């Protein structure tokens, strides 16, 4: 496979510009393209000035929730005398997303640079890059880059001779989707089960090791250097008022050209799916697309004209999430697909909240029996009830994450569920009565 995937749309390539060039994996290569100059500059800046630029740029977190990055950083206390931490979330476990992987393995020095600039802004003395344990091959370039950067005096004591100290450690997870949730991640980093905690305390008050902590996604942090370098207004020339800049899109499922592509925010989803990814193989029609990774509501094939901004996808009834469209062609069995998605969440529920622990398993059981043709007349109603029970009542939003795809599939493809019911004589009788 060749990375990154090129495309013909007129939109700038900022974040992924150096992906595919093995030379920039080394310190020498990274310096050759101007690398670490922004860090040198930022290491001498006042932390609040860095935060100010990022806030003005309108950058929103790329880990799924789209929270404004500068605002998040401004929650970190000042002059509290405590150690602060930055956690870089490289858990990349949302099904459909595979973008952070490209940043880690092609431009590890870009990520290190972004991490250190962010650490400066939030007054952190130690950065932990939490990488999902399954990315062992992918992490080798990153660990090599960290070793080189330490040896060159870029990380550690007296960063680039500026008198500022900042450490960085690469830490491996061990297989748990829930370790991607920010409080679950910090628990996991501390050596615990990756169980999320109820907020407050918020990470900026008491996060990793009980100290003020910021958790940011890999792509968010990799975007920071160009913003600090180019300025807020420069970054805002792309995208919209509420969704500035560019974004990596991980496109998967039934596509002729799946892969990662960078676009200015706002390109119509249909353009991404048809013009860039070539639509479904064999000229098949597209039945549905889950636009933002498996935790987002699905769109039917005739709802793809929306703009790929945070606000555009929200208006369309879904969300941008991790910008990872999963495409299903006309032959897809929606019930089976939902069953497989629900199995994932049932498997990954950490088990603390009853609505999530029990709810996800019940959803799987019901979908399995509908798929097998043994559905009961009341099953669709029960699924809707479960959706209700599982929304907004749990410590983290994993339970809600099942509801988005499931409920939207019931709303939009109810006929597919019903068609499977009629196979059972009991249901046929029930439906007639």
């Amino acid at each position, binding site marked *: 496979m060749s990375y990154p995937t090129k495309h013909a749309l007129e939109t700038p390539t900022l974040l992924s510009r150096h992906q595919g060039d093995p030379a920039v994996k080394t310190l020498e290569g990274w310096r050759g393209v101007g690398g670490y100059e922004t860090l040198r500059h930022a290491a001498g800046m006042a932390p609040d000035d860095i935060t100010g630029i990022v806030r003005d740029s309108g950058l929103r977190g790329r880990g799924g929730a789209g929270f404004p990055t500068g605002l998040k950083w401004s929650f970190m206390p000042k002059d509290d005398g405590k150690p602060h931490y930055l956690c870089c979330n490289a858990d990349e476990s949302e099904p459909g997303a*595979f973008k952070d992987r490209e940043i880690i393995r092609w431009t590890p020095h870009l990520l290190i640079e972004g991490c250190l600039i962010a650490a400066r802004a939030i007054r952190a003395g130690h950065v932990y890059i939490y990488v999902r344990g399954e990315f062992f091959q992918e992490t080798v370039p990153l660990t090599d880059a960290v070793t080189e950067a330490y040896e060159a005096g870029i990380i550690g004591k007296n960063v680039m001779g500026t008198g500022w100290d900042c450490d960085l450690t690469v*830490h491996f997870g061990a297989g748990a989707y829930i370790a991607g949730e920010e409080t679950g991640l910090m628990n996991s980093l501390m050596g615990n089960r990756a169980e999320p905690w109820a907020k407050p305390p918020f990470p900026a008050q008491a996060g990793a090791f009980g100290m003020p902590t910021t958790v940011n996604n890999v792509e968010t942090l990799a975007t920071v250097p160009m913003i600090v370098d180019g300025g807020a207004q420069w970054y805002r020339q792309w995208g919209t008022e509420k969704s500035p800049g560019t974004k990596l899109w991980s496109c*998967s499922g039934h596509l002729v050209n799946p892969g990662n592509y960078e676009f200015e925010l706002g390109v119509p989803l249909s353009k991404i799916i048809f013009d860039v990814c070539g639509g479904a193989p064999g000229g098949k029609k597209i039945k549905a697309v889950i636009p933002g990774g498996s935790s987002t509501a699905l769109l039917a094939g005739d709802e793809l004209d929306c703009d790929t901004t945070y606000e555009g996808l929200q208006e369309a009834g879904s969300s941008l999430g991790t910008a990872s469209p999963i495409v299903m062609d006309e032959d897809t069995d929606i019930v089976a697909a939902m069953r497989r998605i629900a199995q994932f969440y049932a498997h990954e529920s950490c088990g603390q909240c009853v609505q999530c622990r029990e709810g996800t398993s019940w959803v799987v059981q019901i979908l399995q029996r509908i798929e097998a043709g043994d559905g009961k007349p009341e099953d669709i109603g029960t699924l809707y009830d479960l959706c209700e029970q599982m929304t907004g009542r749990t410590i983290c939003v994993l339970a809600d994450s099942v509801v988005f795809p499931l409920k939207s599939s019931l709303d939009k493809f109810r006929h597919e569920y019903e068609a499977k019911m009629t196979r059972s004589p009991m249901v046929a009788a029930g439906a007639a009565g």
Partner: protein
Amino acid sequence: MSRRVHPAVVPAQPFHLATREAGDGPVLTTDEGREWVETAVSRYPQKKAALLPLLSYVQSKRGWVTPGDMADAADALDLTPAFVHSVATFYTMYNRRPVGRHLIQVCTNIACFLNRGEEVLERFLEETGTHEGEMSACGNFTVLEQECLGACGFATVVHVNEKCFENVTPEGVGAIVQALRDDAAAYPNGAARAVEGGD
């Protein structure tokens, strides 16, 4: 050429090279093990934070994590064995029984599911003559069903120990398993992708 390794990256070594050099012997209580633990611990403000890296280190030396290893980990980090057990069982990557020399993990999550991931899994089970999670009699294979492996655009995604195979089709499975059988001697320390499975 051996790679230079800074203590900053010790907690994230490519553990899954699974050298298994420890055999049935101790891992954490050898001089090398103690030194490793000390380096890992030095990277965190609290000892306990080294627990996951430490269990991963054990697994790289043995291929799985024994109850004795958990007790040694508890000892090294001033934790109770019960706590270590509760953590080790929470994460799916820690093998709590021996696995085949080739640990084959097949993603069947949604993007791979749409690209026949469940059939790929079935084919691996057939070709290796095992049930999911069970080690083959020859000790060569264990096949596991996996959740998303973070390479969804290149479905179906299969990991064999530390190697990532992309675009695997049910038809391509036979060739991969045969290559693994042929490669049994050279494996598992090869660094590059031996086979880019599938079509």
